């Protein structure tokens, strides 16, 4: 026998733990069609049946409040799983049954997993599962997801529902006389007109109209506008009447009656509590310290800084291995292939591209592992709780802080894992504003650019300038977030109301699965696109190639240099093995040859598409004090900010400059009359705010679910950065500061 089983339940009810326990590593993660909500599926196999398990997003209710709820509901009505397993936290039974009641109202086959029986027991809560099952009319199976206890019984129970084809009828609760009598009339009309009933149960449609459920109202208007208007009119009448007589709304009335129904069931000997429900548990005692007015913020700072250190320090090691491995592969391929386009494409386009994609993998793994610990333990909710007051001012959410810090809120992060870290945010508008502003933080790749410019123009104030850069990034990000929230991402704050779940020790299995999933998704989804882009960017820097006459010109220069040198010296240089000691004359000849090569590289770069863009932009970029060399470097910086310094080196005929040792380039800049401290400051600010690198742009598009937002980030950020740079350069020039 085969069947589909949907897992549903409140967040923090142990749903994910149970899903992992049931399916093990045989999971598949995807998205629900058209939305960014994650869809996890897996298989549970027993000797005589196989269940296809779908993990629905965690929800507290089945209204159309959030995307998660709509997704869960749509899955239940459209895919019609044979059974819904509702995971209920036994230590928090009354509140968890609110969702269960809504499943019962839909009349779909439900089996309840009474989870966390161990926690309930510790809290002195005893539950009579058999009695609960009899009163609700559905199977109730006690489980402990963390140890896997009860999972076999649960699956057997679900399979039995399928095998015996058990019938389920929608639960009828009284929602008070006014609502009830209006609903009877509505049900008749709905049935007589065949209104939406091929998808939804009759009473449920009437109920959703009473609840003013936007999704159902919309569908109703499309199906039968005339009847839909009449139904809404009836609801309006009931609303007015309830408001006049009882000072309440139909939806509030319905919720009250649901809770009343739950209470009446629990009262019939289902639950026995030994202690006062307000009693403080160890979790509350931990909170007394961790959210303490003075200690709380200090501990939080230490934990966040510690996480940051661990992520970026330890991920450096595997990143280094990857770099070495790709370096070897690149060198190996270089040695085998003849010079030319194919070699350049494979080495600079493909191998560097794949290396670039995989270079982020250790970072993403470490970051998600760290965040999973904070999230699964319950601490992340406390971070949101403590910081919400500040972030709310800017139209963000307390949880936004994680993304900002990972992106470089402490200088040296990376926006790619930062953008992905916004997944912990459940409020859609706040999340979008966060993921659009985290790239303003100073990621590790921007730091060498700052170091170069500071060394050239502000060497005496290094620490101060770095500090100002960090502060500036935060100020810019928060202010832009506020700007976005009052313009393009307008809308009231999403209700903050959330649960502070009890602290729990994360399970290693849960952490590992979580980390692996996220990393694999990055490689699979973002990786392929990024590889394509890196080939395109390679082409922009390499095409069109120098015309043969130009190449010949450089070749002639080299030849004439060699011919003019004494034959013995030229022979010494040509014949010497790599790394051999050379005479002074030979060394000087070698340096001269190198200078010609660097000039050639500069000419090649300027001749390429990227170079032409940079040159063409010069007339505009002059406003900010940037010449064509800076422009090319910044265009290259779109591929990866790491490239800016080395491209600038090529443009200054210094060859490819190692960003870690940019002393010569820094001197060249300081000597160049086209540069000034003012232009350098403009470039620092421009670097901070301009377009995220394309890996980040791809991730922004993926996470926001639309390329529109990726394009927005590129255009908006670049315009903003340019505006600021022009402002600095023009005002400074006018006042004669730093010129």
């Amino acid at each position, binding site marked *: 026998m085969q069947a589909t089983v949907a897992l549903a339940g409140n967040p923090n009810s142990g749903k994910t733990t149970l899903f992992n326990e049931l399916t093990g590593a045989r999971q598949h993660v995807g998205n629900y069609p058209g939305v960014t909500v994650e869809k996890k599926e897996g298989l549970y196999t027993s000797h005589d049946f196989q269940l296809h398990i779908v993990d629905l997003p965690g929800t*507290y*209710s089945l*209204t159309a*409040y959030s995307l998660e709820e709509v997704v869960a509901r749509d899955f239940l009505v459209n895919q019609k799983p044979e059974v819904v397993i509702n995971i209920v936290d036994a*230590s*928090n039974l*009354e*509140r968890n049954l*609110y969702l269960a009641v809504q499943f019962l109202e839909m009349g779909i086959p439900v089996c309840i997993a009474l989870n966390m029986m161990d926690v309930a027991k510790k*809290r002195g809560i005893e539950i009579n599962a058999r009695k609960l099952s009899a009163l609700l009319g559905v199977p109730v199976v006690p489980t402990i997801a963390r140890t896997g206890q009860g999972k076999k019984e649960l699956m057997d129970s679900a399979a039995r529902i399928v095998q015996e084809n058990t019938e389920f009828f929608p639960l009828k609760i009284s929602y008070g006389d006014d609502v009830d009598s209006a609903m009877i009339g509505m049900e008749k009309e709905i049935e007589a007109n065949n209104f939406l009933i091929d998808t939804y149960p009759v009473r449920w449609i009437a109920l959703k109209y009473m609840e003013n459920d936007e999704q159902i109202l919309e569908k109703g208007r499309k199906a039968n506008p005339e009847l839909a208007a009449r139904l809404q009119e009836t609801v309006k009448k009931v609303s007015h009447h309830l408001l006049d007589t009882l*000072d309440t*709304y139909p*939806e*509030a009335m319905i*919720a*009250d009656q649901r*809770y009343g129904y739950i209470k009446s069931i629990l009262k019939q000997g289902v639950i026995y509590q030994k202690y006062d*429900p*307000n009693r403080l548990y160890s979790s*509350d005692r931990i*909170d007394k310290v961790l*959210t*303490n*007015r*003075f200690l*709380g*913020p200090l501990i939080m700072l230490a934990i966040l800084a510690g996480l940051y250190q661990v992520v970026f320090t330890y991920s450096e090691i595997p990143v280094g291995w990857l770099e070495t491995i790709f370096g070897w592969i690149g060198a190996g391929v270089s040695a085998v292939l003849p010079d030319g386009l194919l070699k350049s494409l494979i080495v600079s386009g493909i191998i560097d591209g794949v290396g670039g994609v995989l270079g982020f993998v250790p970072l993403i793994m470490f970051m998600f592992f760290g965040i999973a610990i904070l999230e699964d333990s319950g601490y992340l909710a406390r971070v949101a*709780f*403590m910081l*919400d*007051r*500040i972030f*709310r001012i800017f139209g963000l959410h307390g949880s936004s802080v994680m993304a900002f810090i990972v992106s470089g809120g402490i200088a040296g992060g990376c926006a790619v894992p930062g953008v992905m870290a916004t997944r912990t945010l459940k409020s859609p508008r706040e999340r979008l504003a966060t993921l659009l502003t985290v790239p303003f933080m100073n990621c590790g790749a921007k730091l060498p650019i700052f170091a170069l410019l500071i060394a050239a123009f502000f060497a005496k104030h290094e620490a101060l300038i770095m500090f100002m850069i960090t502060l500036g990034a935060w100020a810019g990000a928060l202010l832009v977030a506020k700007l976005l929230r009052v313009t393009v991402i307008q809308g009231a704050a*999403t*209700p*903050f*109301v*959330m*649960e*502070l*779940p*009890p602290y729990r020790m994360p399970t290693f299995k849960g952490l590992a699965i979580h980390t692996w999933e996220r990393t694999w998704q990055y490689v699979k989804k973002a990786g392929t696109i990024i590889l394509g882009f890196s080939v395109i960017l390679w082409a922009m820097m390499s095409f069109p190639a120098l015309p043969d006459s130009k190449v010949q010109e450089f070749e002639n220069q080299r030849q004439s240099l060699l011919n003019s040198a004494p034959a013995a010296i030229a022979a010494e240089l040509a014949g010497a093995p790599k790394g051999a000691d050379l005479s002074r004359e030979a060394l000087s000849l070698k340096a001269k040859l190198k200078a010609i090569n660097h000039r050639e590289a500069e000419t090649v770069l300027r001749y390429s598409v990227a170079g032409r863009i940079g040159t063409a932009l010069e007339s505009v970029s002059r406003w900010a004090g940037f010449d064509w060399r800076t422009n090319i470097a910044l265009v290259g910086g779109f591929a990866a900010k790491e490239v800016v310094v080395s491209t600038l080196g090529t443009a200054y005929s210094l060859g490819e400059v190692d960003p870690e040792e940019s002393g010569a380039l820094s001197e060249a800049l300081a000597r160049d009359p086209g540069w000034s401290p003012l232009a350098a400051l403009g470039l620092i600010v421009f670097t901070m705010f301009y377009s995220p690198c394309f890996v980040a742009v791809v991730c922004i598009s993926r996470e926001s679910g639309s390329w529109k937002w990726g394009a927005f980030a590129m255009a908006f950020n670049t315009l903003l950065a340019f505006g600021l740079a022009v402002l600095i350069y023009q005002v400074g020039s006018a006042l004669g500061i730093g010129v």
Partner: protein
Amino acid sequence: MRVNMRKMSDNQIGTIAAVKVAGDLGRRLRDMGLVPGTEIKIQGRAPLYDPVALRIRGATLTLRNNEADFIEVEVND
């Protein structure tokens, strides 16, 4: 005596008397169990005195002060 939830002091206990807000916020509050007749206890406040954390049906919820404003609570003294 009926007071606004924002006005309640830490560790004070009361029973929700009314939740006067419709729309998304009203729905969310009800879904989280904040309905009339429910006993709550103020557990504490964030370092900047907002949001507030409260104990309800054995669980801990937090909400912003401007969300607590819509909730009226019956307290003993």
